[in-house]
């Protein structure tokens, strides 16, 4: 019985010209989004690889110079991309692409693509994820808003019920029919996705991308399944198909257009980010209150000298078992590093708290939950950014320590003309960053996953409850 109903529903949808047109349009957009995302990923990846080589060569090719000057020349770290970012560009356009690593301060990533972009940027990007999050629910609404209400209006519901069909079977059949139609719609896109991701996955040789894609698909199944159930429920409840449509469209507008903006705003009100100017002035003041790493005659170092004299039982700075100027550089760097780490930790923890509020909002608007999950799996959310920035910061601290440490341990005190060369530059390994794997992502996305499961569960319960009570009038 259910299979018969499902087949009838499926055929009806497939034969509906409007639904076919809309579905074809959405499918075209999905495939186009996948292809364009893949092109962008490939281009950016190539560029980043080349840039990494170049900055490494630039570092190694530095002419012989004072190691501290070499550290000041610094190097750049570039945030890598995950293959799944072709489906969801997340915050990538709004965060910097390159991180300058230099002594005495920790920088934020520079060059946000959105700053160079046009006014269109604020309309968002119709990525593959966005198509599934925003457009596919519209298709679902279109093919299901009349499923019960339309039958009520045309009188066929009374006939079907009088034929002895259980309301529950009817609902089940309709759900399966819709599911089959959607599967038909999504099949080509899924094939395309697999074709696009496979070479990248095979090249990297790990299961991570496949696991991410699988979890993302499961997430979308919950999201879209919930939408289908909700539409069936509203259609069963509403007295007319027009009312059902209005309610569903209203929910769609609230969920897909209004909720992200409103929730981001609310998150900002709960945990205000504060003023960048204030923050900047505070951190530069704190850094300057510390010892001056460029001037060993600073009062702080005079007292430090006395301490060291006592410790090593010498009376002349030249008798210390290391270069005092080098120690100055090392210790000053340690101080400023701590100051800046505190500063960034404060800022980043506010952002993470805001993100958490946003994800909690996913309990009310499932779009927020699936969007967060999608960005997390595509490694285009803030947590990934923070992970990268912290890794780069460790490398920066090491670079400064290596260079200053060389002066401290291998340059005689007072020798101002000492130069180091490629031998020293090569002792610093290249910055090798690997993104955390999918398990780390899931641990961070617990709220989103729960919200999606709750969404599906709630819609299921509502649909079952309403379907039981469906009446032909």
């Amino acid at each position, binding site marked *: 019985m259910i299979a018969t109903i499902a087949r009838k529903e499926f055929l009806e949808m497939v034969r509906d010209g409007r639904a076919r047109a809309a579905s074809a349009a959405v499918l075209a957009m999905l495939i*186009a989004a996948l292809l*364009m995302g893949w*092109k*962008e990923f490939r*281009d950016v990846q190539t*560029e980043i690889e080349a*840039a990494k080589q170049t900055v490494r060569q*630039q570092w190694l090719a530095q*002419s012989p110079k*004072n190691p*501290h*000057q070499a550290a000041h*020349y610094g190097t750049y770290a570039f945030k890598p991309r995950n293959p799944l970012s072709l489906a969801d560009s997340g*915050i990538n356009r*709004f965060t910097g*692409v*390159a991180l300058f690593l230099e002594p005495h301060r920790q920088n*934020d990533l*520079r*060059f*946000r693509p*959105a*700053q*160079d*972009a*046009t*006014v*269109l940027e*604020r*309309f*968002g*990007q*119709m990525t593959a994820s966005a198509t599934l999050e*925003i457009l596919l629910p*519209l298709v679902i609404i279109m093919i299901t808003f009349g499923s019960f209400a339309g039958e009520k209006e045309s009188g066929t519901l009374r006939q079907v019920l009088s034929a002895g069909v259980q309301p529950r079977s009817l609902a089940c059949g309709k759900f399966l029919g819709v599911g089959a139609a959607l599967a038909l719609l999504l099949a080509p896109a899924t094939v395309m996705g697999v074709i696009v991701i496979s070479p990248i996955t095979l090249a990297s040789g790990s299961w991570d991308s496949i696991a991410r894609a699988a979890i993302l698909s499961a997430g979308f199944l919950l999201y879209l399944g919930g939408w289908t159930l909700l539409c069936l429920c509203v259609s069963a409840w509403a007295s007319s198909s027009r009312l059902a*449509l209005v309610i569903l469209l209203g929910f769609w*507008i609230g969920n897909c*257009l209004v909720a992200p*903006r*409103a929730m*981001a*705003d609310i998150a*900002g009100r709960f945990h205000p980010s504060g*003023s*960048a100017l204030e*923050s900047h*002035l505070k951190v530069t003041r704190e850094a*300057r209150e510390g010892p*001056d790493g*460029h001037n*060993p*005659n*600073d009062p702080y170092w005079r007292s430090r000298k006395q301490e060291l004299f006592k410790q090593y039982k010498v009376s002349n700075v030249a008798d210390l078992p290391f270069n005092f*100027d080098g120690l100055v550089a090392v210790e000053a760097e340690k101080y400023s590093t701590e100051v800046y780490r505190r500063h960034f930790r404060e800022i980043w923890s*506010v*952002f993470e708290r*805001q*993100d958490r509020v946003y994800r909690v909002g996913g309990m009310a608007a499932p779009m927020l939950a699936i969007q967060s999950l999608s960005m997390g799996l595509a490694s285009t959310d*803030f947590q990934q950014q923070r992970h990268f920035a912290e890794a780069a910061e460790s490398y920066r601290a090491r670079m400064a320590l290596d260079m200053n440490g060389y002066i401290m341990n291998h340059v005689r005190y007072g020798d*101002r003309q000492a130069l180091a060369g490629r031998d020293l530059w090569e002792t610093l390994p290249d910055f090798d960053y690997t993104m955390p794997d999918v398990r780390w992502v899931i641990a961070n996305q617990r709220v989103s996953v729960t919200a999606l499961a709750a969404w599906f569960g709630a819609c299921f319960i509502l649909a079952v409850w309403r379907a039981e009570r469906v009446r032909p009038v």
Partner: protein
Amino acid sequence: MNFRHMIFHEWRLLRADRSLWVLAILTVLLIGYGIRNGLTWVEFQKQTIAAATAEQKARLENVKEQLIALESSNANFDPNYFRDPRNPRAVNSVYGYQWALLPPSDLASLAIGQSDLHPYYTAVTASSRHTSAQLDELQNPLQLLAGRFDLAFVVVYLFPLLVFAFSYNMLSEERENGTLSLVLAQPATLGSLLLAKSLLRVLYVALIAITLSVTGFLAAGVHWGDQGVAFAASAWTLTVIAYGLVWLGMATLVNSRGWSSAANAITLAGIWLVLVAIVPSVLNVVISTIHPLPSRIALVEAAREAQSRALTRIGQLPGPSGSIDMDERARSSLIQIITAEAEVLPVLRRFDEQLEKQQQQVKLWRWISPAIMTQLALTEVAGTDGERYRQFVSATERFRARWREFLYPIYPRRFTSADIERIPRFSFEGSEHSRYSAETAFVLLAAYGVGIVASLRFARRNFT
């Protein structure tokens, strides 16, 4: 039944519809929320600008006092000590730099546009803009991605829905209720009926547009006396009215096709979805793919290459506490900066050209959706579309040149308290244009006119 009767009757019908009142209240709430968000952001900007101004004033006074004290005590001057305000390099990066400030324009709270992405305050030092760190506002990138719930969002996304709500069943409802034939049995033509209904709705649209605009202006505390403000405000209002009217025109056109109310609703919802929700974001992806943004990474690499080459040519600067002549050291570092910049200039120029190309593409393609046209126009009037920011960046660069002219001659000697008095000051006067809003309003109004004429012809065919 004359024209006036028809309008009056139509007004009574709309007034009696309770769902429209609910919608009106909801709209008022959303407009209020949108205005409030815009105001919060602009207030924050103004506070930051005031804080920067105060910090600069306090800092310069402090430095002057320190200089006077150091000069009278004639303390020992070590040119490598970076915490001495007599050191010109320290004056450049720590003590004497000026803030370049971009104050929000009068209407900036109505459309946040790009203003939360573009830095509105910069510390101008002698270093090039492209290599020095930029102070971006502390904003969660997720919020930047989600966008702002400002008045422009309410106008561009939600205003059309409101217009549809009271016009989707203009004619179809009369036919479904059976009253259309009764009305037409009076000495009233279908054309005059349609015009009467349209005219009333035009008044509604204008009323809503003017109300939300004026509320926005009042809340923003616009200074009507300022130059160009009255013109900008009228441009804004006219654009909003024209935008509402183009959707009204679409609703009228769809009605004239003679379908049922439900079919009208679905069609109009579909048009809205395509033109507002889908086309702009798809166009964004398409333009980014076909005309990608020039690569900042390439720019960074070129700048570093240039810097290395400059360094190699001039010779290495010694490490900390070098005993080399201050003159030579200062000269070397100057030459280094200037040489490196000269090398990077061609790359920068190419970069700017590519940026400009992308901007042009968007300007060209904006005609495919009223939402894009209107967003561009509204942000232009509010001064938040990036044009004002580009003017600010040019002003900053001109000031940077003045700063270098002032500071570089001082490099070989010490900075004195007399020099403090001569420090150049930054000032910026932006000019807003309303070119896009004028064009947009004109095009939208013309589209409305065309829509009405077409509706009359279709209606005669489909309803009689």
